[in-house]
């Protein structure tokens, strides 16, 4: 449903993305992995129409996303970006209600339906109890969940998340991953934690230096050799007894050399 065709993206003379092609199947959960500076965020920004690629096309449902009206695109794709500083005073509920923006015509009022969707999404993201709190007074993790609830309120077919588990404690990391995994929509997420990526994603795309190095199931992509190539880290792999997915243990140079 989302086709990335020969995308490249340059900032001045530096090529950040190099001829990237891949396609995302409807309903799948795609994890984007790669070291810092590999182009994960940039690729996501190109996918969610914030950066216009220097070359290539992003095609959704057989339509060039740059030829779609902004509003229509926002009904198809919701985004939880990495940082979303909210510097003005809004309550949590007001913020989640903003997710309804692309669905509202100019003169439209907020309907019962909108409010019901907002309540549902707040419940899903486990923030219903924060509804009337000021966003600026929340903890980092709570803020992240509010942002997720706002994206859910957009009721899109695709949800793009840029390192959604940042700032979250373990409980809320797992809760969030469970939540997005349970959604019947297409998920594309940049993830730092390879074990989370292994446990939850259907497919992984491994980026390095702005190019796709590997694209496949977690079993295919997460091997000792490939991780070494992408991340320059030695690992010991096992199979997680519960998820039956690869489980990765990192070995730092210090222990490996026995010092």
């Amino acid at each position: 449903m989302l086709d990335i065709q020969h995308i490249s993206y340059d900032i001045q003379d530096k090529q950040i993305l190099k001829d990237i092609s891949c396609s995302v199947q409807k309903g799948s959960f795609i994890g984007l992995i790669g070291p810092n500076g590999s182009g994960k965020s940039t690729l996501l920004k190109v996918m969610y129409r914030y950066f216009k690629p220097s070359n290539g096309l992003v095609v959704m449902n057989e339509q060039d996303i740059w030829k779609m009206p902004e509003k229509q695109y926002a009904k198809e794709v919701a985004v939880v970006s990495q940082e979303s500083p909210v510097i003005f005073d809004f309550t949590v509920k007001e913020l989640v209600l903003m997710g309804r923006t692309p669905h509202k015509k100019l003169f439209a009022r907020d309907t019962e339906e909108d409010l019901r969707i907002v309540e549902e999404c707040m419940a899903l993201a486990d923030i219903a109890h924060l509804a009337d709190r000021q966003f600026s007074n929340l903890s980092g993790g709570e803020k992240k969940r509010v942002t997720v609830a706002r994206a859910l309120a957009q009721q899109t077919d695709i949800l793009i998340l840029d390192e959604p588990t940042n700032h979250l404690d373990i409980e809320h990391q797992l809760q969030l991953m469970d939540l997005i995994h349970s959604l019947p929509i297409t998920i594309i997420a940049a993830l730092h934690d390879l074990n989370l990526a292994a446990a939850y994603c259907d497919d992984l795309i491994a980026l390095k230096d702005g190019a796709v190095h590997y694209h496949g199931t977690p079993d295919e992509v997460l091997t000792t050799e490939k991780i070494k190539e992408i991340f320059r880290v030695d690992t010991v792999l096992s199979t997680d007894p519960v998820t039956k997915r690869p489980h990765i243990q990192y070995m730092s140079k210090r222990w490996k050399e026995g010092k």
Partner: protein
Amino acid sequence: MVIMKKRFNLVMIVLAVLLFIAMTVAVMIGSVDITPLIIWQVVLSHFAVDLGAQPTSAQAIIIWEIRVPRVILAAVVGAGLAISGAAIQALVRNSIADPYILGVSSGASVGATSVILLGAFSFLGVYALSTAAFLGAMMAVSIVFLLARVNGRTSVVRLLLAGIAISLVFSAATNFMLMTSKEEGGIKAVMHWMLGSLAGAKWNNIGIPIVVFAIVFILLTICYRQLNALLMGEETAATLGLSIEKFRFVIIVLVSLLTGVLVAVSGSIGFIGLIIPHIVRMIVGSNYKYVLPMSALIGAVFLVCADAFARSVISPEEMPIGIITALCGCPFFIWMLRKQSYSFGGGE
């Protein structure tokens, strides 16, 4: 949110009553004493309603031809500057912005000064001053907007800095005209104009401000969701389906038109566009669905009172209204600064 809505409705009703009282009292104040009953008799007689009072013809003229237009203009200018300030703060996503940040007032000053001191546009007669001020304002804003646009994108920081730079250039031009002028009276008139005054209000020149205010207010209120989205930052606004460049352009045009028209009739009255949106956000938060209507009402009440004060404090002389707005507004603003519960759009 339910709480906010209730609070909003309650405060709006109180403000509407306050505005009614303030406008009535403002018409009463002056060298000729007039009772509220006579005021409303005169006003309503123009709508074929008789309250049974017997105003003299002198009272009728003073009320209807002089004081009523002035009070209405005060309300419109106050409301207009307040919503312009609120909109600009959303546009640049910065709570220290005011409606003049894009160069409107310094541009208007150049226009007004060249009319007062150099006699420019004299063929326009009594409309020369407002026309020149409006044209100057539009010229300054257009230059700022063009400077801030690079490769079809408008950057907020560039917009702010271009606004400051152009304001300085235009102020320099005004100051140059002032320094080289030998007319004492003209210089004083320019100073008076720059500090703002509503003394020129007449039925035939308050029509345009009223209409422009009404149109801009309605359009901004319709766009409250987009203004909210803009407050979330460019990237989030884009992912919520906003076409940022187009929307910014529309907001800049609307706000510049409104402030240009207001400055043209009243001079550049400071402080309202900055302070009123903050007062409003303290009461109802940053949701523009509430911020815009409440800014309009508080701005109107504030300026009607300020103008009444400006007329009476050193009567028969008039105090420039800009001095009053700053003198009354500042202590309040400083008190707000010290309050912990309000973040001023500064996050944490």
